[in-house]
């Protein structure tokens, strides 16, 4: 469930655009005003504001924001204001670049979005980067990582709830055999994870648990701790079956580190605020005995903190 709050009577896009313009004017910037508007608008509303702003003031809102803001707050606002597909395309592109490369982010985008959302990301990627997402991912990854990530990012999974139990049994068996022999990178494992529907994958791992008495993620813990591919595989399975738990893990390590990992924190909050941040928050509290909001406010400051809190729906504006 989404967390950020939108009031029942929302100003028109042109009113919002005007207000944002005033926030940029004069000395300094009125960050509170920016947050009070943008953090309380849905994706559709933000899109209209951006269009209107461009029509009226002749500049992309994102550009104006970029000029006025800086650092973590800017990153949060920019990511938030973008359309989801654009956002995912940007994240994926950064993840293929040398200094910001991240197999984890690529996997996260590929596995935690719906088929339609992933498709929008691929379309936005064409438009912005003049290439396909898969050619960049393929070009910047190698070996097993490439096999897994290109397959994941190119998938267009069936989204129905139908499940074939016989198939689930067969594929649970295949996976069990491969893992037993530590063939984590086996083609069959990759095939199953990157082509089957999420419902089918869930059924397969339920079967796995029934048949072998332990959860797949537990079985995978026994591998080599330094094996990065294995870690990625675990996260992949987690993202496909229990994404909220994956996000809780990422948030916890982002906030617990001495020195917060703002990149991860911003990414999770802005990409999930419209999707399932509520459930993630609940799980976070259950596992860490502290609310997500409290954990965030303990570790962040200023406008950045205000923005995150607003996206969590915990601010008083509405």
């Amino acid at each position, binding site marked *: 469930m989404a967390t950020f709050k939108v009031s029942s009577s929302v100003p028109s896009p042109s009113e919002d655009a005007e207000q944002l313009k005033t926030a940029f004017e004069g000395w300094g910037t009125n960050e509170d005003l920016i947050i009070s508007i943008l953090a309380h608008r849905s994706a559709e509303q933000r899109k209209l504001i951006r269009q209107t702003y461009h029509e009226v003031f002749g500049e992309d809102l994102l550009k104006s924001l970029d000029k006025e803001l800086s650092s973590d707050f800017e990153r949060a606002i920019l990511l938030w204001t973008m359309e989801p597909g654009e956002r995912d395309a940007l994240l994926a592109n950064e993840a293929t670049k040398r200094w910001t490369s991240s197999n984890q982010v690529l996997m996260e985008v590929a596995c935690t979005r719906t088929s339609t959302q992933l*498709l929008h990301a691929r379309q936005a990627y064409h438009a912005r980067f003049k290439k396909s997402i898969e050619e960049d991912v393929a070009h910047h990854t190698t070996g097993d990582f490439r096999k897994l990530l290109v397959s994941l990012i190119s998938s267009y999974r069936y989204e*129905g709830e*139908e499940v074939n139990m016989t198939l689930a049994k067969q594929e649970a068996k295949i996976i069990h055999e491969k893992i037993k022999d530590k063939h984590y990178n086996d083609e069959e494992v990759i095939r199953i994870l990157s082509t089957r529907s999420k419902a089918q994958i869930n059924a397969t791992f339920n079967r796995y648990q029934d048949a072998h008495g332990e959860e797949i993620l537990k079985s995978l813990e026994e591998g080599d701790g330094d094996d990065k591919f294995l870690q990625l595989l675990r996260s992949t399975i987690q993202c496909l079956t229990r994404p909220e738990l994956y996000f809780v893990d990422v948030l916890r390590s982002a906030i617990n580190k001495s020195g917060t990992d703002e990149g991860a924190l911003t990414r999770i909050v802005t990409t999930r605020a419209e999707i399932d941040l509520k459930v993630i928050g609940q799980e976070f509290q259950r596992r860490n005995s502290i609310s997500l909001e409290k954990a965030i406010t303990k570790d962040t400051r200023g406008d950045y903190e205000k923005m995150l809190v607003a996206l969590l729906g915990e601010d008083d504006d509405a």
Partner: protein
Amino acid sequence: MAQTLDWDVVIDAISGKNVGMGVDEKALITTLGNSHKDHRKLFRKASKSFFEEDEERAFEKCHDQFVKHLRLEFSRFNNAVVMWSMHPWERDARVVKKALKKGDECYSLIVEVACTRSSEDLLGARKAYHSLFDQSMEEDIASNIHGSRRKLLVGLVSAYRYEGNKVKDDSAKSDAKILAEAVASPGEKAIENDEVVRILSTRSKLHLQHVYKHYNQIKGSDLLGGVSESSILNDALLCLLKPSVYFSKILNASLNKDADKGTKKWLTRVFVTRADHSDEMKDIAEEYNQRYGETLAQNIQEKIRGNYRDFLLTLLSKSN
């Protein structure tokens, strides 16, 4: 009734022996439709190649082959119409499904759908696949095909290629070098190379044209001549780089009177799936003309009959 019926017309129409594909429905209607049942009996008794006398039970029974043949000859127009009425996405999804069921020899159809359609049309076919078969195209392909061909085919159908006109020539050059080394290995080994699969299944078609150009410069020979014709790699290259050549070749094969039943079906598929894209159809017709000396229209006139012929010619004329 003293009516001289031209049974040769009937035999001709339904045997397809001398002329090719499809049925001359008009001739059949005139002859068979006007015939008295006694005349038909005489026809059956006289046509030993189609009918067998069951003397014990006193009737003339059809040879199995004859029934099969008749059904096939009559079905072409039917298939063409059904296919034509379908949404292109459904058409393509069904082609892929059928190819998967038929196995090995039909995998080139999957390559054809994956590589000759636009990114949006391929995506559409994948959507239709969800809707028709409750699975994704890639999962079906992946679970039914193994080995190096799986990698290539899954890669090709999963592509959502960039279609704009920006190309990085240095990238194309380095891709060409990689391809040059990989293709040197014999047989199907080339598609086992991950880099080859990467290049063929992720790059934009424009980028691939640049790769092709650089490859030919590096090797001093044509990439398209240097790969075994009957390989899946060749199909992919041809479909991606020179689709009109690919299509004119398979049209030619399907119009050959010695072609088998499966091959003859290609004719319908190519026409029905390409006719909406008049530029492409035009290119195919021109390429065909250059390659084989005759025009497609001529060839069809000579070799096909009846409603099937008229339908094909109508589809062809849409592109002019």
